[in-house]
């Protein structure tokens, strides 16, 4: 830290030092922080996703052939954590007021032991959450883009898009799920399909949840995309039509590519929301992450620990999503089109 401050004052005292082409001490320090941060992110991501993928692979493929502890059973034993917790809490008891931190550590060790035990259930729940989120966001996007285009360029038809958006955004998602699940005969139709609920194919509640999230998410995504569409200068479409492209082609080849770049940050926000509000699928009996967690909590009564662990898994999913979208944003970045480049750099003089 002191190194960095020194470098700053040095640059301020001697302007020539600041304009030297070589990196300053401060730049190097910041560079190494960045690298360390990146490395940590990558490592944490590898551990988190490595665990999830290993779990999924094991539970559905390997456990069947008699290898390891069996499907849904933890890879590790919680015993060491339990032993650690026991010794920590006895230490806490003997140290009096000084032992309070040991008590906290004991709780953490207990939570770790619980984590090992319920990890397999959370991993299975996370599978549903991931699949629900990914399919709904992608399907929702496919509806949202035409919807937003209709809203902005649709002429008289834009009222259709407006009505859809307002109806969907204006009613609670849970109510929409209930209507789809209980109110419509969808479950009967889906049950008639011989593949639903057999083997790897989840039961009908799962498909209804995807439908619900797709419809709901499409309305929100359409609004984000509409905002971005309106950011693109009108002259862009005029110029596209002036070279002989039709209005549709102009939107497709000129307006949309810019729009989607502008929309990435807001769209990421929707993705992050969806990861968490996919937990509402639990209300229609989809055994996703939150459903599993609250199920375990109510049977073990370890609410704090279970929801703490649940939060960690959600956080892992959300951070992975924002990280990936950040990469996508940088990958498709174009000079002069949105993006934060140039705004976070310090003035060169």
């Amino acid at each position, binding site marked *: 830290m002191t190194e960095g401050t020194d470098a700053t004052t040095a640059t301020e005292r001697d302007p020539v030092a600041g304009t030297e082409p070589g990196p300053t001490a401060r730049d190097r320090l910041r560079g190494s922080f960045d690298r360390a941060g990146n490395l940590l992110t990558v490592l944490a991501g590898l551990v988190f996703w490595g665990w999830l993928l290993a779990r999924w692979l094991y539970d559905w493929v390997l456990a069947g052939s008699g290898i390891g502890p069996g499907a849904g059973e933890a890879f590790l034993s919680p015993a060491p954590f339990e032993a650690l917790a026991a010794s920590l809490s006895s230490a806490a008891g003997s140290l009096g007021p000084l032992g309070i931190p040991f008590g906290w550590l004991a709780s953490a060790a207990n939570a770790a032991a619980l984590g090992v035990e319920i990890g397999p259930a959370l991993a299975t729940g996370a599978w549903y959450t991931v699949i629900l989120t990914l399919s709904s966001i992608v399907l929702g996007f496919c509806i949202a883009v035409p919807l937003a285009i209709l809203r902005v360029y649709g002429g008289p038809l834009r009222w259709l898009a407006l009505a859809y958006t307002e109806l969907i955004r204006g009613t609670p998602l849970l109510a929409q799920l209930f209507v789809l699940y209980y109110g419509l005969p969808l479950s009967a139709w889906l049950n008639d399909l011989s593949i639903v609920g057999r083997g790897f194919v989840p039961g009908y509640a799962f498909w209804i949840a995807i439908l619900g999230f797709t419809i709901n998410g499409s309305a929100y995504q359409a609004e984000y995309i509409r905002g971005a569409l309106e950011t693109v200068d009108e002259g862009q479409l*005029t110029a*596209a039509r002036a070279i002989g492209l*039709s209005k549709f082609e102009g939107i497709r080849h000129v307006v949309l590519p*810019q729009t989607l770049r502008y929309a990435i940050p807001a769209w990421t926000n929707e993705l992050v929301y969806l990861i968490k509000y996919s937990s509402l699928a639990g209300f229609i009996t989809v055994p996703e992450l939150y459903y599993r967690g609250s199920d375990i909590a109510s049977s073990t009564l370890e609410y704090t620990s279970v929801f703490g662990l649940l939060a960690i898994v959600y956080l892992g999913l959300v951070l992975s999503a924002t990280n990936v979208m950040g990469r996508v944003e940088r990958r498709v970045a174009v000079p002069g089109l949105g993006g934060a480049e140039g705004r976070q750099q310090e003035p060169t003089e």
Partner: protein
Amino acid sequence: MTNPRTDDGDGRTADDRRGDGDERTAPPSSATAATDPLLRIEDLHKSYGAEEVLRGVSLEIDRGDVEVLVGPSGSGKSTLLQCLNCLTEIDSGHIYLGDTEVTASDTDPNEIRQQIGMVFQDINLFAHLTARKNITLGLRKVRGMSAEAARERADAELDRVGLADQADSYPAQLSGGQKQRVGIARALAMDPEVMLFDEPTSALDPELSNEVLTVMDELVDEGMTMVVVTHEMRFARGAASGITFLADGQIVERGPPERLFENPSHERTAQFFENISHDHD
């Protein structure tokens, strides 16, 4: 800049226009096949809401002509260009490009726009594409050229406007003058019959204007048919084959540059040229 409206001036222009219109509408109806004027505009009317922006404009432009449109702001020059390129729907009147009636209901406006190149005041390069791809987009999607051929053509056009070295730059990385030259190259690549310029230099510093005007001068030398809305009187004087002075949606006066500059027959025209020469000196 606002010219006082004199009853006298307006009355005269209206009479002249009606006179012109009568002369013109009589012969063409019998001989539509005559392709002498490349671009023919007959009694064009256009309103935005209650405001009538074009009030009966008739104009003929021959192949190879460079017509410069001048007039106070709000006189309808830009609207006229947009009508020519089907970017705005007209209320009444006719526009012909060669033998084709642009304004006919069965004419595909996308076909017309391919034959009419347009250069905009605010340039409007496709912001997400490099200079080269700004040009290849139309060649690929409209002309259906192969990627290879489109690329070659784009590079040739960039070379023509002196920007061969900027092919991979994005618009945000180019200066205003460079952007406008790419804009011209993009329009030229479609092999247009006519090029329309809507105040191509008015968003640019004088210094940057020159590089654009140089490119336009070269086009004039190559015999390109051009309709140019501009306040660059140096360009008008040097390159125009005719100057049309518009005011209040009507053609006040039209003639060769020498006559309009030195000896305009309408007071309004004289006043306009005097005003802009003051502005520019």
